[in-house]
């Protein structure tokens, strides 16, 4: 190659376009359905999502156990027949149980829509929670739990939630080994009856949607009675721990997991878009301050990230990393130093420009293709918001100034209020 440097090509400003709106309709019995038509392949993604997450359980593990048991046998299908039939039709599914919501995501070829919807009704509304499968499932999950509890990252994260939200808060309670013995199939069936009801369901469909989809949805789900569920909810008053620093010793660990953070506002708060930008600057992307300082300048870790998460009862922000045991104090000090810097020194124009473009690029990716569109839809719909949230976020990304960033950091990042949890 000859020595003359090539001229850098011009960069066009990154501009997320108009977000395709989901088509909203209701089944005969009122179940809300959202259709997002997109993509090049004849595939469909359906998200059956219920107001049935962990926040609704009175006993640890109930919500996730119910969710996991949905495919373990129904009125007309045994567990193996259910799985065989789904596999035969080339379908992939993902049972999920989050803090607030639970359900099933199914991916399949559009031509199989009728079969898949028939099976979905079995899974969601006609599970029988067979005793034998239930016992086996709990034993198996206990094994998984024990392996997960062996990882410093999980030990630190669980303690973080407990410290930040309080032992009694639905987001803060830790699962312990005894919890696996305290559940019964009846208690699962009871939770199911109350929470997996048509009245608590929404269906989000994306992809190249088969023309028969809506009539078929009505056939399988539209006649289900939306019985008024008698739901009692456990207390969810946030009682954060007084103790801000917790270390959990793990014998023989080579690395220590560090989690530093605190409760935060969620998407419903007007400051949230701005705070999201502050979080990205600090540790939310590959070129973030934490990555640059702790990985790229000091080589202390393979990765360090900060993330702000929005949940219905509360948000939280957390910085996560794993470092060699001996480097723990050094890494923690540097994290605190970066937070202080963010509060005291205005962000340089150059850095802000990078962050703006990165975030706008992310927003283009968030709406690219049927699956990304459906996820982005859910992450505002869950909060009763719509795409105007995203337009607000775009506007904030484009217009935020350094002094607003400093002000937000000063309000929301106070190192004395933050929990420092370590395990290793």
């Amino acid at each position, binding site marked *: 190659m000859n020595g003359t440097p090539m001229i*850098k090509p011009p*960069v066009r400003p990154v501009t997320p376009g108009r977000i395709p709106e989901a088509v909203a309709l209701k089944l005969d019995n009122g179940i809300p359905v959202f259709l997002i038509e997109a993509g090049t392949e004849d595939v469909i993604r359906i998200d059956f999502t219920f107001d049935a997450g962990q926040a609704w359980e009175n006993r640890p593990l109930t919500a996730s156990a119910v969710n996991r048991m949905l495919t373990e046998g129904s009125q007309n299908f045994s567990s193996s027949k259910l799985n065989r039939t789904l596999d035969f039709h080339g379908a*992939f599914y993902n049972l999920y149980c989050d803090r607030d919501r639970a359900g099933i995501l199914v991916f399949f070829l559009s031509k199989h829509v009728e079969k898949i919807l028939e099976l979905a009704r079995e899974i969601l509304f006609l599970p029988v929670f067979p005793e034998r499968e239930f016992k086996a499932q709990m034993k198996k999950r206990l*094994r998984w739990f024990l392996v997960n509890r062996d990882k410093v990252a999980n030990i630190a994260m669980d303690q973080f939630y407990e410290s930040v939200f309080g032992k009694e808060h639905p987001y803060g309670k830790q699962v312990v080994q005894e919890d696996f013995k305290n559940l019964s199939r009846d208690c699962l069936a009871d939770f199911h009856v109350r929470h997996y009801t048509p009245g608590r369901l929404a269906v989000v469909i994306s992809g190249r949607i088969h023309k028969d989809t809506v009539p078929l949805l009505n056939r399988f789900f539209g006649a289900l009675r939306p019985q008024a569920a008698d739901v009692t909810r456990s207390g969810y008053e946030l009682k954060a721990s007084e103790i801000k620093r917790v270390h959990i010793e793990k014998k023989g660990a080579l690395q220590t997991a560090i989690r530093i953070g605190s409760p935060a506002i969620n998407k419903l708060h007007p400051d949230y878009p701005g705070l999201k930008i502050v979080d990205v600057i600090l540790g939310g992307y590959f*070129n973030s301050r934490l990555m640059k300082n702790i990985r790229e300048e000091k*080589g202390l870790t393979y990765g360090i990230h900060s993330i702000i998460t929005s949940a219905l009862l509360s948000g939280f922000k957390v910085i996560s990393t794993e470092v060699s045991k001996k480097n723990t104090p050094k890494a923690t000090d540097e994290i605190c130093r970066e937070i202080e810097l963010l509060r005291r020194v205005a962000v340089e124009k150059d850095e802000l420009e990078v962050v703006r473009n990165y975030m706008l690029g992310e927003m283009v990716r968030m709406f690219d293709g049927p699956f990304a569109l459906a996820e982005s839809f859910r992450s505002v719909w869950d909060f009763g918001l719509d795409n105007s949230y995203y337009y607000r976020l775009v506007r904030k990304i484009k217009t935020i100034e350094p002094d607003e960033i400093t002000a937000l950091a000063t309000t929301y990042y106070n190192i004395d209020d933050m929990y420092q949890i370590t395990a290793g």
Partner: protein
Amino acid sequence: MISYKKYTLDNGLRVLMHEDRSTTLAAMNILYNVGSRDEDPGSTGMAHLFEHLMFGGTAQIPDYDKQLLLAGGENNAFTNTDITNYYLTLPAENIETAFWLESDRMNLIDFSQRNLDIQKSVVIEEYKQRYLNQPYGDAMLLMRPLAYRIHPYRWPAIGMDISHIHDVTLDKVREFFFTHYAPNNAILTLTGNFRTREAVRMAKKWFGRIERRNVKPVDRPAEPEQTEARSLEVEKDVPADALYKAWHTVPRAGNDFYTLDLITDLLAGGESGRLYNKLVRQKKLFSEINAYITSDIDPGIALLHGRLMKDVDIRSAEEAVLKVIDELKEKPPSSHEMEKVRNKYESSNVFANTSILNKAVNLSFFELTGNPDLINTEVDLYRKTSRSMVTEAARKYFDPASCSTLYYRSSRDQK
């Protein structure tokens, strides 16, 4: 059907392009034909460490990441036994920025001792985080040298030992770059919203100036046939016993690859797989069990691993596994079961093609194996796999004499 065009530059760089107008993005994938199989046994982990150094900047562009971010892009990379693969996505109108950045670092990287030292520490922390500080994290570090005695697949891409990473010198790094990073040893694939004609023009403009380099083919010893079962037993502080087994199979381009892939699907493809159904669901011997074949360019392995339930004897669990495999040797699967695994493959293939990034990564890899058309025709090869081919392949490859077994035992009192 994924339509693509191929163009080879004078310097040997192969360029593949697939237009997809349904997206506003473009993806660029650069595959370098160098992986851990090209490493010297005394300096393993080099290809992967080098991947980290590729983000260290050049004399022209000291800040690769920043420049890509300014164009709204996002990138990452991975290194495996066969390849080092860099990929990015960005808004399609800024695609030329990707050409600028990638051609610049293919041309010459700025090697500094400081960056090398930092990235060594980063990779050593990665080694600890992913392989040493996780329960069972080192299982593959133990399995590889058991299954492979001389072929470089006997070490993982992260490296055989942390000391190898520690000992890398700047001279070694420089030499590695000039022997492996070259237009004639790379495949560039573009997918997304652009015009092929424009992409060819940009490829010529940006990459055309880089000179062909003298890439020395690495002389890799072939792994001799394994004729006796091998076994290893370790005891570690983990929650439960685990069983690992490996059998020698075929190269990615080998005839039996598809049959073997379907065999592992019959065994472990989801909850309706035979191993899950019989050994997790019915007999409750394992809490989880999985099987798959590696997609290696040189002859690979079929790998099976499972974690045991409390109080289950590992030997009887192993016997139960072997019984399930033997059934495949004795009796062909029903047409219905065959149809199930073929359908599953077909649908996962369609799903893979919903992402421009996947399409770019896959096209590059298929080009490396010598036949990019496979991105469209593999479905038929799976479809053509018959019931008797399954029986034959099960007999041929799942031979006890070519098997390596690891008992990964728990030193704890079982709770």
